[in-house]
């Protein structure tokens, strides 16, 4: 490589992210003059819409020329697809927060800007073509989320969540950085494409494997893969529900966006046992997430474990990048974003203003008292459980198909068996809503914004489930991915 390198700077590729940055700035400025965060929320939605429009135009444009900054920013098909996921997830979270931040007494002006900055980090992670950009994206993504987890200062659960998340997150980042250092040592570069080239040319394999392993471990932390998952249930339980709505989908999507890219580029060049180690981790994730979710009484915590379990399902796709796993991961995360954010949106209406009261008993008789809410939650949960014809099912088909074609039949079997467990715990909530009489007063809180979020997620879950083909076709352009 010549030095200094000729740069191919294309700011247009950053347009969706820049839209978020701009909106965040505007939000911060607004906060100086305006106490009502709803305006900020509205502006944020506008910004997200703008970002969406930019992203769409990039997506529909020639995705083949997506690389810029010397292959450090890859606005290719998967990245842009992940951007959609990020935007949609963020928008749903903003809608859920719209009325909730006031109700839960956590209406501080920096809320929405932080969410947007975090989403920006997610986009950077998805598009990162090197480990440094990845690290920066990761931090931009994470720092706001750490703080947002602790957003309800004074609420012990929220504090605890923030602190835990931060400490373990920083630990995870350190591991990732060290892995990056070793990988650099082995290949002389942080850019995936260069790493691949160097390793293909016969670099120190063990060192590279080690570096890649530690990088994967660091990302596995964000994605909540066993044994780096333990923060997730606690943080999801403790953090404010609207924040969980955001991070359960966007953080996970971003982590997997990075994971899948590394799995598709660097991982095949290092020692093959790393793949096996990842498979073991995925297997453990499936088991632990689903089993632990089974014994939860709180629905929020159950969903937290279920989120861990879903990391396992996406993990199946990550293991099979060459067999349709890439698009399967994107697709699955799209579906997951809709259904999981939807479920948390419903949950946010059930919990009280102290963000408590998510016991299964609270859902008893919801089918009678709040039929619409109950129906929506039923759809979300069944979709999470992989029941056709909802989005989660089509996602599972793709993910399992990819895993089987990559030779991970045993993992697919394990995944499906744990899915049975999953369906049992999802169905328990459905059963409470429909098979029991109300035991508590019906949750009285109503929010049009949250209803809109629920409706949108519902429509998405059903539509994507009934017509899964178009989105899958759209992201199958991934053959033209940069650095692959």
């Amino acid at each position, binding site marked *: 490589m*010549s030095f200094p390198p000729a740069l191919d700077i294309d700011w247009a590729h950053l347009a969706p992210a820049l839209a978020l940055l701009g909106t965040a700035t505007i939000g911060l400025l607004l906060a100086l003059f305006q106490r009502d965060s709803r305006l900020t929320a509205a502006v944020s939605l506008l910004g997200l819409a703008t970002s969406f429009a930019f992203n769409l135009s990039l997506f529909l444009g020639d995705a083949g020329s997506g690389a810029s900054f010397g292959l450090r920013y890859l606005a290719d098909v998967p990245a842009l697809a992940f951007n959609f996921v990020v935007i949609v997830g963020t928008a749903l979270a903003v809608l859920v927060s719209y009325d909730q931040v006031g109700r839960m007494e956590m209406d501080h002006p920096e809320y929405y800007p932080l969410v947007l900055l975090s989403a920006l980090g997610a986009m950077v992670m998805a598009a990162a073509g090197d480990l*440094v950009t990845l690290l920066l994206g990761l*931090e931009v993504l994470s720092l706001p989320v750490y*703080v947002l987890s602790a957003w309800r200062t004074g609420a*012990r*659960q929220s504090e*605890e969540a923030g602190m835990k998340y931060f400490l373990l997150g920083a630990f995870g980042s350190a591991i990732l*950085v060290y892995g990056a*250092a070793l990988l650099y040592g082995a290949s002389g570069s942080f850019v995936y494409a260069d790493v691949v080239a160097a390793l293909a040319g016969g670099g120190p394999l063990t060192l590279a494997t080690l570096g890649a392993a530690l990088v994967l471990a660091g990302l596995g932390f964000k994605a909540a893969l066993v044994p780096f998952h333990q923060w997730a249930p606690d943080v999801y339980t403790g953090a404010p529900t609207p924040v969980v709505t955001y991070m359960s989908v966007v953080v996970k999507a971003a982590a997997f966006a990075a994971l899948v890219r590394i799995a598709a580029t660097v991982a095949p060049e290092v020692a093959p046992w790393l793949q096996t180690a990842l498979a073991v981790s995925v297997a453990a994730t499936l088991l632990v997430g689903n089993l632990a979710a089974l014994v939860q009484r709180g629905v929020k915590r159950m969903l937290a474990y279920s989120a861990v379990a879903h990391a396992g399902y996406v993990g199946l796709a990550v293991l099979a990048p060459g067999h349709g796993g890439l698009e399967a991961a994107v697709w699955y995360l799209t579906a997951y974003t809709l259904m999981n954010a939807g479920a948390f949106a419903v949950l946010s209406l059930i919990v009280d203003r102290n963000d408590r009261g998510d016991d299964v008993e609270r859902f008893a008789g919801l089918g009678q008292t709040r039929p619409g809410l109950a129906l929506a939650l039923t759809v979300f949960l069944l979709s999470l459980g992989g029941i056709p014809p909802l989005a989660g099912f089509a996602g599972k088909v793709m993910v399992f198909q990819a895993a089987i074609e990559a030779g991970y039949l045993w993992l697919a079997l394990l995944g499906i068996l744990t899915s049975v467990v999953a369906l049992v715990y999802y169905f328990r909530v459905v059963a409470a809503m429909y098979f029991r009489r109300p035991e508590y007063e019906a949750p009285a809180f109503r929010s049009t914004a949250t209803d809109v979020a629920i409706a949108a997620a519902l429509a998405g879950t059903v539509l994507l489930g009934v017509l899964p083909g178009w989105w899958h076709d759209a992201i199958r352009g991934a053959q033209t991915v940069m650095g692959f």
Partner: protein
Amino acid sequence: MSVPSEYFVALSAVLFGLGAVGVVTRRSAILVFLSIELMLNAANLAIVAYARQWTVTGGGHALEGQGAVFIVLAVAAAEVAVGLGILVAIFRHRVTTDVDQLAEVRA
């Protein structure tokens, strides 16, 4: 004959390991955090060491490493800002930095 870069890497591994052990063994959140800083530094040391090593293939690779160290430093700084912020915010209510007190959400 200069010291092989890998010796520095080994040193960084030791520091990294110490940091990691500190994360596990220290009970005060701030000391946990301190240990994490040690780990980040270890990573930086490794990068710098390998940066010198990669001078063999010309300037690009070596300087890429040193640049990265600069950025990691910035990341560490940002983490410190946020971490200490959370720490302070929580300390207001808890009057302790003992991470073992942060175990109400479990199972």
